[in-house]
């Protein structure tokens, strides 16, 4: 009697365990674990991430997700290599994995001036399923959790003082070494820059007014230099720029966007018209280490 009870208990425990295992395996195939922000539904089979990837992504990113798709040799900049799990546009600190929302936003936004379009024709569920599949290419997604998104405090007032403080920071942090004294992307180090795979890469040119790769808002701009763009020469400034200073820098960077009628540019133009003689040029002559 006792033995029978015990055996029955053992068998049912095994059954529960194996069912649980199968459920987990299925969940990993089509759902990223710990995903937040989007309702996740079981879609029909053709909506699964693998199917969608095979149809829309494989040509550039490759069957192994290693950026060696058949179109890749003809593309510049190169497609993302998902096996490294290193991503440019993150809300998380440098060196950490992005959140699912970061990947979702990247797929939705696309990457301006590259071959990566905005995937708005895909439904939110389809984009979410793609994220699950993209995350299967690197073991990092099993070993690590995404970083904690950085905190972005409320924006400080936009005024000429903030623009001028940001300008001093642009000089002090030596942003001009790559982005150029006027933000044209033509600093002294610009021509030598390579990404982490040794492909040449250009620093952003603020003057032409193309949107930023990782979003269009002031919050996006703040996030870009505080998290850095991993895999590129753009470092994180989170440890060396305070939040108020970061907003000043955002306001100054907006004043470099000559092709857009930004409020900050108007403030700068008015200031420059009245104070041209007091404005020190940005560049090596005013670098912290001194000029020649």
């Amino acid at each position, binding site marked *: 009697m006792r033995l029978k009870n*015990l055996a029955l208990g053992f068998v049912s425990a095994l059954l529960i365990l194996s069912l649980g295992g199968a459920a987990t395996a299925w969940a990993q195939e089509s759902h990223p674990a710990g995903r937040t922000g989007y309702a996740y539904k079981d879609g029909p089979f053709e909506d699964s991430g693998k199917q969608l990837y095979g149809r829309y992504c494989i040509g550039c990113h490759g069957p192994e997700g290693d950026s060696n798709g058949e179109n890749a040799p003809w593309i510049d900049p190169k497609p993302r290599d998902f096996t*490294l799990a*290193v991503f440019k546009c993150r809300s998380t600190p*440098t*060196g*950490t994995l992005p959140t699912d929302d970061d990947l979702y936003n990247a797929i939705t936004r696309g990457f301006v001036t590259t071959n990566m379009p905005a995937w708005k024709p895909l439904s939110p569920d389809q984009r979410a399923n793609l994220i699950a599949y993209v995350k299967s290419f690197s073991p990092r997604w099993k070993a*690590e959790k995404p970083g904690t998104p950085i905190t972005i405090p409320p924006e400080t007032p936009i005024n000429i003082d903030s623009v001028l403080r940001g300008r001093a920071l642009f000089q*002090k*942090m*030596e942003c001009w*070494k*790559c982005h150029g004294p006027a933000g044209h992307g033509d600093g*002294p*180090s610009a021509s*030598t*820059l*390579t990404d*982490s795979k040794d492909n040449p890469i250009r620093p952003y040119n603020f003057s032409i007014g193309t949107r930023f790769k990782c979003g269009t808002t002031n919050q996006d701009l703040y996030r870009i230099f505080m998290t*850095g763009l*991993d*895999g*590129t*020469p*753009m*470092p*994180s*400034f*989170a*440890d*060396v720029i305070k939040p108020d200073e970061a907003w000043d820098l955002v306001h100054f960077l907006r004043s470099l966007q000559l092709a857009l009628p930004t409020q900050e540019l108007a403030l700068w133009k008015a200031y420059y018209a009245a104070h041209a003689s007091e404005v020190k040029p940005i560049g*090596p002559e005013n*670098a*912290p*280490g*001194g*000029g*020649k």
Partner: protein
Amino acid sequence: MKVKYFLTFTVVVAASCLLVALFTSPAHSRAASVAASGSITGKITYTGTPPKAKPIDMAKEPSCAKQHATPVTTEEVATGPDNTLEYVVVYISSGDQAPSAPTEGARYDQKGCQYVPHVLAFQVNQDLQIYNDDQTSHNIHPLAKANQEWNKSQPPGTPPIDAKYAKPEFIPVKCNIHPWMHGYFAVLGTSHFAISDKDGIYKIAGVPAGTYKVTAWQEKSSPVTQDVTVAGGETKADFSFKVTPY
């Protein structure tokens, strides 16, 4: 009834835990109590033609250029007298029974727009501090693959950057602002390692008696491994690399 089953189950689990503990613990104490220890020492040489060290033009960074009386040269293959090689990491790659925990942090400096030392060896999970001693901003960008790649700006006068690596890896380090700056982190799973000096000499001290695989790593060459048996005292192990001019 149910309570009785539960009790039996608990007793069985507790007993098996105890057994596991009994069988595993002596192994650890055995490894730690190795008696005689010696050292491994030798000379690193090359055959073939090494690439010529190229002078580095730091004119774009005057604050660094003026720190060097004579122009500095590239250090990827640093040669010494009698065909010797500097900056070669020699370490126990297999058979290390008792790696000791590091007692202090490792220090990496950016000085005169160069990495000092050019190659820094340290242990997994050892504290690493990166200093900017220059009057210019650097961005420190270790291009890790097995570990996490990160990239941080470090303007002059800012505190050192703290870092740690969990997995063994040889990580190229670069500064994107000063493209001539190249260095290496050798993150090792052993506490027994050394780096060859300007005469190509290395010495790994405090090695317990035993037989090991010892590997020499040079950033531009294939690694070289040999078996080394230490029986106390000094054990000689020389390594030779084949180098090419390109």
